[in-house]
């Protein structure tokens, strides 16, 4: 199998190149892209990528695989590569490259921090847990599962254009996760902070985020809910 990898090391390279590496794959197994990367690194230890859980829950190994953002550890080769083709690995688009497949995620995290991603409830907590009905808890399903892999935000043209001002799908999904939580009492404060032309409204609803989310989440829908809340909040 031919693997074409984006290579760039600021210590030594003037500019990035796509490097082709030949890797021998076992015939009877459908490896994950991350397993193939490990085989590449066995040949050339200078190839750099992030990885941790290798089961799709930590969000370390988001990358662009044959043109589509995804997690290397849960993308099987059979899905990534059409028959006869090669595996093409590039860093997530739209963020500065640190080295090879590793991007600088600072601005992505900054947008996440901006939405105050923590429960705000200034009333004194009870001696036990705060009660919440199963129905109210169900409102958090499809929101809290985000793994911050950045596959969605780096697939979003609005985020490419305004990564400093548009929160992006990942951050907004979490913004709604707290707006939707019946235990959170800061809806007004949260909405006021989102109420500008950029933070939410740069979303054009093209659903690029939904198309690539490795956890099957739907940020566009969450953004729609925030829009409705903002409209109500403004009136």
């Amino acid at each position, binding site marked *: 199998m031919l693997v074409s990898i984006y290579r760039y*090391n*600021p*210590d*030594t390279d003037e500019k990035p190149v796509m490097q082709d590496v030949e890797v021998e794959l076992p015939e009877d197994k459908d490896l994950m892209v991350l397993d193939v990367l*490990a085989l590449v*690194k*066995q040949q050339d*230890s*200078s190839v*750099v*990528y*992030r*990885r*941790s*859980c*290798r*089961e*799709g*829950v*930590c*969000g*370390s190994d988001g990358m662009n695989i044959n043109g589509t953002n995804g997690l290397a550890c*849960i993308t099987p080769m059979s899905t990534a590569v059409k028959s006869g083709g090669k595996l093409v690995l590039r860093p997530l688009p739209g963020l500065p490259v*640190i*080295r*090879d497949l*590793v991007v600088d*995620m600072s601005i992505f*995290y900054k947008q996440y*921090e901006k939405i*105050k*991603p*923590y*429960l705000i*409830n200034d009333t004194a*907590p009870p*001696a*036990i*847990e*705060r*009660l*919440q*009905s*199963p129905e*109210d*808890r169900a409102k*958090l399903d499809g929101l*809290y*599962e985000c*793994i*911050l892999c950045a596959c969605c935000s780096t697939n979003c043209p609005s985020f490419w254009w305004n990564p400093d001002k548009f929160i992006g799908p990942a951050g907004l999904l979490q913004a709604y996760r*707290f707006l939707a*939580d019946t*235990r*959170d009492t800061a809806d007004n404060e949260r909405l006021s902070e989102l109420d500008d032309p950029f933070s939410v409204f740069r979303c054009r609803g093209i659903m690029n985020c939904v198309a690539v989310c490795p956890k099957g989440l739907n940020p566009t829908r969450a953004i729609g809910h925030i829009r409705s809340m903002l409209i109500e909040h403004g009136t």
Partner: protein
Amino acid sequence: MTGMRTLTFDAVIVGGGGAGMRAALQLAQSGYNTAVITKVFPTRSHTVSAQGGITCAIASDDPNDDWRWHMYDTVKGSDYIGDQDAIEYMCSEGPQTVFELEHMGLPFSRTEKGRIYQRPFGGQSKDFGKGGQAARTCAAADRTGHALLHTLYQGNLKNNTAFLNEWYATDLVKNQDGAIVGVIAICIETGETVFVKSKATVFATGGAGRIYASTTNALINTGDGVGMALRAGFPVQDIEMWQFHPTGIYGAGTLVTEGCRGEGGYLINKDGERFMERYAPNAKDLAGRDVVARSMVLEILEGRGCGENGDHVMLKLDHLGEEVLNSKLPGILELSRTFAHVDPVKEPIPVVPTCHYMMGGIPTNVNGQALTQNEKGEDAIIPGLFAVGEVACVSVHGANRLGGNSLLDLVVFGRAAGKHIEEMLSQGLEQREASVTDIEQAQNRLARLNESSSGESVSTLRAELQNIMQNHFGVFRRGDFMQDGIQKLSALRERIANVHLDDKSLTFNTARIEALELENLFEVAEATAIAAEGRNESRGAHARDDFRERDDENWLCHSMYFPKGKRVGKRDVNFSPKTVDTFEPQVRSY
């Protein structure tokens, strides 16, 4: 000094998983200058992979539940070498700790009454083993670790904890008094090496499952804390005790939560027989993990395994129905479809016992203070060093951890260490400055690695190490086999010491990190091997073919492995809880 930058903090926590972030939160809330050094962005830590839940007597499922019942189960689960003062502390402080997490926003699943949902897990009982199966594991679907880790990260953001993300601690810095005054750390992004100076250094570096070829553990679980402690000359306790989780996905090693069996799933052999009924007539599939793992291996050895090679068994869930599976075990459906290519709604999941958890580690007291032994063999506190979570051996898990007790261990003892350090700092905690030599000493291995010009590759040596451990120190162990393994390890030591780093660049050099990790893996592996060979009995997860019985006369104690001279000593188990009567050792059956 050595031309190296020094960063100074009141407390530095090495590791950004559940234990580290709970400790950091405690200290950040009290306003101390605290930093978390973590080799991955905090939410990428292995806590994220915990699925089934956090066990704790919050009396939601059963209003009469009692933390003493949880304590009884934990002591029994530990095969009686868990320290009863520590288990008492964990089980009694647990409810408050879990409520705090809920108040912080953790999205627990709920009961109709609006309380936290609890599911049955292995080794749980009511009324000190007399009242049948309990349901004591608090869950956020089957993503409890993810929910817990993100909630703690969020709590730390709220409290402005300083994070040194993607920094890697290489070694402890010890002053002339033997006190720990910080660590040497590399900023992975720039390659800069820094002395991180601190009045209190807390290890929360997690486990080391990567010493085995087949493990549920993340690739980052390389025993960095144990490696650093051993290199600094400190002992580790009960390091021979490794848990093999009954249900790792066959071939992939990824975890399938015990919660599957808690929700009513069960294991079958090739004849479709629910074989756990034979091995544990009462608890069946919810016996202790060591018991279930051994039963599975026996089924396989006796020719009743499944598949072409008869080398695994099956976990049956389809009878639970699609609705239950979707609401209670959605993550398992995902993992099974991805890694086992089966849909649990229709067919069983192929599973096999897989290395999962390190019960042993750096011995500590309930305040998280790391311990060694003085010349008389008495406990002695190591000034400045703390350990919490999987790297620590406080010891609440003894010879076998109960499912759901690891998340509880993380948050209870992360919090306890944070509180204790807070108190020490408020009373004025000072250590003597480290000298240039002290700091250079801690940089030795980094310097050697950076100068390496020949030698073998990390991946070759690592694979060899993992295979030795897998073949010689697995679910069942035997003296001659282990001695053979120790010989092989001993031959490997020098080769690993000469590991070759061909990429010497600075920016985000993961080859360098992997080489440093390999040395830690080796330290953990060798300590495991020597301690395992030394314990001549079967207890909990340590099952020997040549010593099949538990030997309370000689081994109702902790093992202590000392790196100097590679000596195995003993340490007393605590049998003196403060508020309840001692749980005396009994025959352990489920």
